């Protein structure tokens, strides 16, 4: 009975898929393989059964990956496939690991529950020097958890709001590998952003080049955007599009255009996807242009815009080959 429940529970594990710098192709293949199996990607580490980091992480990001790993509630499994061909066996391995009762028990016993807490403590110690004095409530600078409290700043409506530094990436699902976008938020609106790129430890060659791959990059971006909009059905279609199936491509494109018209998708994102898929390869985006693109947007829009422009970002292109190849 217990065995049957475990089989049912692990029939379709939810995998939190993160792209390492240069891991674009492995990540795209992972999503396609998940589709083939009918598994769903997890939207956040909290609800995920498995963590999959596509590609090779540079050493400085290893610690961050461990923090991410500590956020999986367990039973949990972890893998880092580095080649497109190893993706199916990796996923099989993840499921086997989730079904291994003895292994999961051992993992639970050996867990340090407060990895994230320790990380924040050491992080806030670093921030301490930069904290400037606040007039009235000095004693409230720190919460008991050791978190740094936000400082106020006027928002776009002229009302003082908390300004919160919120990093997006570098280890985030449906996010270009290696991109770290540190945003300053007023509520959920990004007012400032800084871009950092993490280099892959060794350059990875794209598995194929040429026009077919250019389009694949566009369809991959379209799939990510659709998935971010919660439309997994169309996202699956977009991922399955090969340049040889124009009807499916047309359907996805029409859907994207409709979403743009209805305002579900920021217009810029819709336009760049349309251009990439229907007309020609759009121009690359520099880091400054990326900052310009996201500032003044709310957090959700930022995710959609970055996803739509992912194949055009300078850092992604440097790490894994480009549409221009």
């Amino acid at each position: 009975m217990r065995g049957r429940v475990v089989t049912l529970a692990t029939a379709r594990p939810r995998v939190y898929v993160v792209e390492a710098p240069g891991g674009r192709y492995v990540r795209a293949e992972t999503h396609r393989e998940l589709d083939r199996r009918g598994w769903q990607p997890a939207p956040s580490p909290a609800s995920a059964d498995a963590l999959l980091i596509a590609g090779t992480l540079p050493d400085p990001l290893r610690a961050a990956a461990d923090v991410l790993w500590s956020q999986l509630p367990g039973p949990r499994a972890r893998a880092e496939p580095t080649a497109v061909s190893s993706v199916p066996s990796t996923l099989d391995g993840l499921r086997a690991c989730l079904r291994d009762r003895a292994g999961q028990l051992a993992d639970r016993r050996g867990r340090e529950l407060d990895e994230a807490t320790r990380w924040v403590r050491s992080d806030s110690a670093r921030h301490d020097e930069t904290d400037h004095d606040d007039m009235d409530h000095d004693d409230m600078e720190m919460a008991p958890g050791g978190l740094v409290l936000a400082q106020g700043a006027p928002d776009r409506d002229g009302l003082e709001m908390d300004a919160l530094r919120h990093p997006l990436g570098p280890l985030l699902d449906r996010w270009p590998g290696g991109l770290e976008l540190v945003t300053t938020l007023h509520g959920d609106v990004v007012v400032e952003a800084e871009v950092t790129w993490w280099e892959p430890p060794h350059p990875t060659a794209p598995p194929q080049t040429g026009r077919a791959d250019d389009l694949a990059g566009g369809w991959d971006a379209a799939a990510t955007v659709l998935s971010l909009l919660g439309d997994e059905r169309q996202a699956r279609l977009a991922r399955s599009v090969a340049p040889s199936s124009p009807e499916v491509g047309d359907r996805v494109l029409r859907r994207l255009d409709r979403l743009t018209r209805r305002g579900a998708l920021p217009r810029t994102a819709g336009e760049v996807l349309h251009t990439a898929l229907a007309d020609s390869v759009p121009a690359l985006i520099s880091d400054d242009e990326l900052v310009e693109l996201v500032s003044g947007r709310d957090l959700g829009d930022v995710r959609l815009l970055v996803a739509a422009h992912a194949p055009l970002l300078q850092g992604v292109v440097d790490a894994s080959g480009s549409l221009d190849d």
Partner: protein
Amino acid sequence: MTDPLADQLARLPAAALGAVLALGLVLVLAWTASVSRGVAAGRAVPASMAHAPAEAARLLRQGRRTTLSADRLLWRVGGWGLFPVAVLLIALVPVGETALLPGSLGVVWANALDVVVWALVWLLGWGANSVAGLVGGYRFLALALGYELPLMFALVAPAIAASSLDLAVVADAQSSLWYAVWMPVAFVAYLVGVLGFAVSGPLAAPVGSEVSDGALAELSGPDLLVVRAGRHALMGAGAAIAVPLFLGGGSGPWLPDAVWVVLKALLLTGALAWAAGRLPTLRTHQLMEPLWTILLPLVVLQDLVVAVLVVSGS
């Protein structure tokens, strides 16, 4: 002194049976919503039917995620409160002879219960102490202000037409023509409200995928399971309340009243969940204008039309 108490005690078994039936109905409705959602997302019907049990098994096996300085009390209240609200809503629906919680103010109670969802979803986002959760919680309040007023005025229309706030009376008043037919705007506004408090379809921005599922971002295991079940249950409960309000309650040929109520609720839940699965999630700031400047005035106009017709008819 003992007589009323004994009276109350004598009614306990019947009430307990009713509560179990209501709970069962909520579970069936929630499951219907989940299946319909799966079909809308492109899964085959058998796979959609198996989806809810498999996810339940998976989440029951999963542990609890802890976040730093979470307000655990409020967080859990927010999550575990959704499903009971759905059960209470179902208890207001007259099935057959009477509702589990009958009363002359059923319509107002339904409204009060859906307002409780405001508090719960916000607490859910707040309690986790995470950016995604907070964004989701605040998005919900913004949307709630937008959908709640049209929803309230939509509830007013059937009450005016039936000159009663009692759901059973409202249902009986529709023997000749369903209110959904002659007050379509109110019906649509009500359904938008249901999507709103079930946090799905075009109004799903508070749990939007693009902010890592927003208010749900830090939930795991059984806590996530009850919230997901609660959202489906709220959609089912909203549809069930629409049956006496707009769809003629238990009226229908051949079958007994109770069966018709359940059947209509199941069909509406399925349709609503399918639509919610197909319609895109709209961004919060894009929804504000249509909700406040188009839907709300239209519903108020609908109320006026209904009131004028009722007065001139009597």
